[in-house]
């Protein structure tokens, strides 16, 4: 076991340069939604980084304990966005999850081989090598992941949660794959609805298509889109992640377009930020291909406002709508004005700002499944702020946030509807 830990520590050395930037100031305590509930230092970025450092320096033996803390995280990026030292907290956590979770997931016999491969210099080379050698033994076969990999959706409905039911028909059955030329709109875009829109909120996808059609934008929406990969990566499964990236890459490289649009904040941030970040193990040409597709990824509301410059007559009467900032849109992509602009210029909407609009809703993908109670407490704060705003509708730009807020509002029997900003926009067309 001791030798094992030594090897794990060596893997983690790769993160030392990023971790040393943390000056332990503790300011992340003020923004971490998990810490706000548990008040435990091991749950906040500073604590997690300290634990990883100690694991990396072989001062800690209980790797499982560290793994547990590492998974006690929404990957919301609030800490990184607020960090005075600019620590790349999400990079560190994602890479550490891959290292620690892959390692912990290995049966003892496999660990020995895993260690043998450590002679290779690049961290993710190693993991990829190991992963491909043991493909099918300790990672999920890709087919299981592609197409239906969002663990959040496959999960059984348990406890007292109010899950959004799966849509009767997914988007891909309601709207046929398409490949249209631009009209007056001039642009041609690729559309990536994402798993949650496809399976739970097809109406969001339909709203987007309606808007794009209205503006005469050419749309490439191929059949056979795969998950963006974040659920796999967040549970440390780099191999499946890489497969998903490659699958999507090949699919979208078939056509030319100006932007790759998604209505899902998490998909946008993953494809725009995390795909290139995690491509270090790939060949030079693959890295370049990923980078060039990533650069085209854009949030749908940002496209409407910054590119199409849609401007509706400002009114201010109509239903009261408030807006929730998805962490991955505001903190990762710095997009927060555009969705508001779309709402404020909507003649059917009277926009009201809620308190702490950018406070995390507590969903965090599989976090919600592993730590439902904490997730629910975080969600309850969001629900309280929504209700206090007096809004009849809470709009947002991420289907995962929509699910979490629906769950919370419905448990509290609140009469507040949850909608995507694009649904409200499409209603005006």
């Amino acid at each position: 076991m001791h030798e094992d830990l030594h090897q794990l520590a060596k893997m983690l050395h790769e993160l030392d340069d990023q971790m040393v930037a943390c000056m332990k100031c503790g300011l992340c305590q003020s923004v971490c939604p998990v810490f706000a509930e548990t008040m435990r230092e091991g749950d906040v970025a500073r604590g997690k980084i300290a634990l990883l450092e100690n694991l990396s320096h072989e001062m800690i033996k209980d790797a499982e304990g560290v793994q547990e803390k590492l998974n006690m995280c929404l990957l919301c990026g609030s800490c990184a966005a607020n960090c005075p030292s600019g620590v790349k907290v999400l990079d560190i956590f994602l890479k550490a999850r891959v290292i620690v979770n892959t390692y912990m997931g290995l049966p003892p016999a496999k660990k020995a081989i895993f260690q043998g491969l450590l002679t290779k210099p690049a961290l993710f080379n190693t993991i990829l090598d190991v992963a491909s050698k043991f493909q099918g033994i300790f990672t999920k076969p890709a087919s299981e992941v592609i197409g239906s990999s969002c663990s959040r959706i496959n999960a059984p409905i348990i406890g007292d949660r109010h899950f959004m039911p799966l849509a009767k028909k997914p988007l891909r059955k309601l709207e046929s794959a398409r490949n249209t030329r631009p009209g007056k709109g001039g642009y041609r875009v690729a559309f990536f609805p994402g798993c949650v829109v496809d399976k739970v909120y097809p109406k969001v996808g339909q709203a987007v298509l309606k808007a794009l059609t209205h503006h005469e934008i050419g749309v490439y929406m191929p059949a056979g889109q795969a998950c963006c990969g974040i659920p796999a990566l967040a549970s440390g499964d780099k191999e499946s992640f890489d497969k998903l990236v490659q699958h999507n890459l090949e699919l979208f490289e078939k056509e030319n377009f100006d932007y790759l649009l998604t209505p899902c904040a998490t998909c946008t941030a993953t494809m725009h930020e995390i795909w290139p970040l995690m491509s270090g193990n790939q060949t030079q040409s693959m890295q370049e291909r990923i980078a060039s597709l990533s650069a085209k990824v854009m949030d749908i509301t940002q496209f409407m406002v910054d590119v199409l410059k849609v401007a509706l007559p400002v009114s201010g009467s109509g239903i009261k709508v408030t807006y929730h900032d998805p962490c991955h849109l505001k903190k990762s992509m710095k997009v927060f004005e555009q969705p508001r602009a779309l709402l404020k210029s909507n003649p059917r909407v009277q926009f009201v700002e809620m308190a702490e609009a950018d406070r995390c809703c507590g969903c965090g993908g599989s976090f919600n499944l592993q730590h439902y109670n904490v997730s629910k407490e975080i969600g309850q704060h969001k629900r309280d702020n929504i209700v206090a705003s007096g809004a009849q509708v809470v709009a947002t730009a991420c289907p995962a946030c929509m699910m979490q807020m629906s769950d919370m509002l419905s448990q509290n029997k609140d009469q507040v509807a949850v909608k995507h900003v694009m649904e409200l926009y499409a209603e005006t067309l």
Partner: protein
Amino acid sequence: MISTSLLTEFKNLLGKENVMDSESDRHAYSYDAAVLDAVIPELVLRPTNSEQLGKTVALCNENKLPMTVRGAGTNLSGGTIPTKEHGVVILTNGLNKILEINEQDLYAVVQPGVVTAKFAAEVARRGLFYPPDPGSQAVSTLGGNVSENAGGLRGLKYGVTKDYVMGVNFWNAEGEYVKSGGKTVKCVTGLNISQLMVGSEGTLGVFDEIIFKLVPPPVASKAMLAEFDDINKASETVAAIIANKIVPCTLELLDNATINYVEDFTKAGLPCDAAAILLIEVDGGHIALVEDDAEKVVEICKKNGARRVQMAKDAAEKNKLWEARRNALPALARARPTTVLEDATVPRSQIPAMIKAINDIAAKYKLQIGTFGHAGDGNLHPTILTDKRDKEEFHRVEQAVDEIFDVALSLGGTLSGEHGIGTAKSKWLEKETTKATIIYSRRLKKAVDPNYLLNPGKIIGG
């Protein structure tokens, strides 16, 4: 080792979830914001009410376990790094209630784990003002603030934490309740123990309730930014403002190195060739008076050689002027892996001498140092940018810190204006004071904590 029966006793007292003894939990309470080696505690306890806090202290005392109270763990001097042998950490974040805000009598009673900014916001909501605003206020606790006598940007005009402490009720080393001070403006009942608690860094008692003075808020403010070619002129300007009987609520200085780091980081168009900039804010109870003061400040700046002065017309402009100051620490912290944030403090007239000495020290030890700070009260933050993994460089950092303190003392200043002594600076204490001061303090400590269990080793060593 802590016995299983004692562990059970703590669990019965505090609830299982508030007794942390797993390796990973203990490692998460082994450090604070100081650049010092971590020490892993043996146990971490989290009382959630006053009685539990008292019993926790009593149990630790009976079992001779040294206890380190921890608020947010943001102090910069090692005050919350636990003791090496059998160290126990007592968390106060479960004691985070504002017990009373009295709008008639202008005081508030709080538990020690209340977060400073949350308290200040709640006080503001009631139309009152709690001025101490340390840079860490978004997370720091009021117990930690009292323990470190925290200052902030408003120190010059509004004073520091000690100026707002009316009373402290605490558990002594044996876990008995001690009350000091009170809710009245005047109170001479007994020794002035509350003020002894201020700055005591957990070595004399464990705070349970703190009574703070509140004041009416200013209604208007004006912010200005002045650029100087010569740091002496900036310093003369500061002196002239105060000589003119204007006491700004903020009087912040950024030296040339810091300006350049901020500009590299923000690209906001700061004057990189300026020797210093001063951020000045005046406030008060009447807009006309404040505007008057602001005009005068602008005039004084110009008369004393400022090459450019900007005055903010509205809130947005004010926000913009603050940008440089707000980004000082983020810019410096990003420049190199390790950030050593010092707070040597000198009489304000000695600021130019101090900054010159810091720059000489930086050159001598080949180090990067940016200095910013509270020019109004002489509290500077020479910030050394380094990489603690580079042993050779870090050794030079330690030598530079020694020298910075020597200069500060020779200029009539002090080791620490607001960051406390902890273990980081205790070895210099005698230099600033006398041997007798240390002995006197240790005797005092021994008298109230005979087993030496309250955060031993902090401030006065031993």
